[in-house]
């Protein structure tokens, strides 16, 4: 098809200018980090410690994101699609931790898991404080409110009529959820999951408080960055940051393939 050159409106030009500005701003940030970190990258990638923290970060971020999704989706469903009592109040409650500094979330968790109950749990084998499990717990508490909110909103946007139609065609509530509600909310949910995973990868405040930073044990990439910065090793810190960025880019391309495009409309807007 021939290319067309319709006049670009003033409005579009402004948005494009702002977009370029924003892109420039954020590029400057990432480029600064790259420039500072890349010279130390080779060294970092040869360090057993860094390799360990890459693995630990990937593992904990992935596990916590999966658990988070598994908890958030049913919760969002219960809050939007069932006759759950006092919905409004629970929703507010669930979103409260969003405004807490991660440090406070970490401290709160530390208090909980150091309580009698927590110590019982620990004795029963579920040790959280100062252990790898704690990283996952911290990530979950940091991300859960946020994922629940996005998933809830996407469920609310799903046309109730389509769900009813599916029910009339013989779908039970569960089937209707899997075949209609979930697929129609899919893009938002995938978006939320990517965000949660990214956040988990970079999360730091809550984890540090709950599990500390014991080398080769609870040292995630952000923890390693923190330690390097505390000892004045800015290059090494930024090298770890660059590794985070590289993982992030890779993940984006991966997710890009999973995320199926929305169904095209008949008309291509002119």
């Amino acid at each position, binding site marked *: 098809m021939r290319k067309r050159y319709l006049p670009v409106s003033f409005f579009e030009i402004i948005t494009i200018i702002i977009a370029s500005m924003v892109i420039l701003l954020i590029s400057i940030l990432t480029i600064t980090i790259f420039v500072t970190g890349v010279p130390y990258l080779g060294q970092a990638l040869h360090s057993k410690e860094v390799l360990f923290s890459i693995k630990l970060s990937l593992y904990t971020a992935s596990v916590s994101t999966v658990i988070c999704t598994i908890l958030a989706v049913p919760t969002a469903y219960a809050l939007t699609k069932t006759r759950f009592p006092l919905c409004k109040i629970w929703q507010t409650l669930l979103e409260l931790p969003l405004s807490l500094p991660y440090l406070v979330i970490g401290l709160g968790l530390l208090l909980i898991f150091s309580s009698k109950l927590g110590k019982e749990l620990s004795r029963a084998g579920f040790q959280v404080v100062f252990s790898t499990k704690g990283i996952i717990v911290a990530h979950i508490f940091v991300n859960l409110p946020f994922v629940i909110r996005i998933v809830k909103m996407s469920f609310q946007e799903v046309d109730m*009529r*389509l769900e*009813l*139609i*599916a*029910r*009339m*065609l*013989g*779908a*039970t509530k569960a*089937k209707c959820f899997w*075949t*209609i509600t979930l*697929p*129609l909310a899919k893009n938002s949910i995938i978006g939320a999951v990517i965000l949660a995973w990214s956040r988990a990868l970079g999360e730091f405040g809550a984890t540090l408080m709950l599990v500390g930073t014991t080398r080769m044990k609870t040292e995630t990439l952000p923890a390693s960055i923190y330690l390097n910065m505390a000892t004045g090793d800015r290059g090494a810190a930024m090298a770890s940051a660059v590794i985070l960025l590289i993982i992030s880019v890779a993940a984006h391309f991966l997710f890009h393939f999973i995320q199926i495009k929305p*169904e*095209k*409309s*008949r008309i291509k807007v002119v």
Partner: protein
Amino acid sequence: MIHIENFTYQVANFKLQNIELEIKENEIFAFLGKTGSGKTMLLEAIAGFYRGNCGAIYISGKDVVDIVPEERKIGFVYQDFGLFPHMTVYENIRYGLKMHRVEKSKMNLRISDMAKLLGIEHILKHYPATLSGGERQRTALARALVLQPRILLMDEPFSALDPGTRSQMYQLVEQIHKTFACTILFVTHNLYEAERMAQRIGIMVNGKLKMVCNTDKLFQNYEDTEILEFIGGYLNDNGTDVSKIERRLNADCTRLQPDK
């Protein structure tokens, strides 16, 4: 089969009022009425979407709203189709069969048969957003018919079709009615359609079911001015029959016979 007992349902300014109707098993019933008179709402009420302010609707003796939707076994062709946008035409039609755990080979056979009968085989892989109006309507029909439901509710099911395709649909529905013995209620603005398909006709006026009669007795009872006005709509504005052209068409070209 379907027993509507003094059903009343109010929403905003509109009120379905004291509907009384008894539909026999295997009957075909047509609703006529002015736009906005509550035909769709009555059909939806029969499907159990609304709990009445008073009265109730019973299907085989059970209040329909007390049956969970998936067990109502009602086929519904929606006026605006209600296709699943994330599924192809094929998947839309398959949906109900899958939910009823129909065996796979049988399922494919039924879908391809139905698609052939409705003339939509060529678009089975397309998504609803890309379909033409008539294709959407036939997909909605196929999705309801393929389940061979006990009760079939259809809301202006042929409105987007050309007369040729439409008369094929009449045959198809009649055939399904004969083969699977189902009760059919449908809404239409087409008098020919109503008489051709239905045994009885109900006329809705302003949320009330003003008149119910056998199709052949439709023109014998004109006391009510509202019904008079509605039926009058089927004349053109000079008071003559709207079908002038069709009549001439028939006179001009008797040699024109459809292929079969």
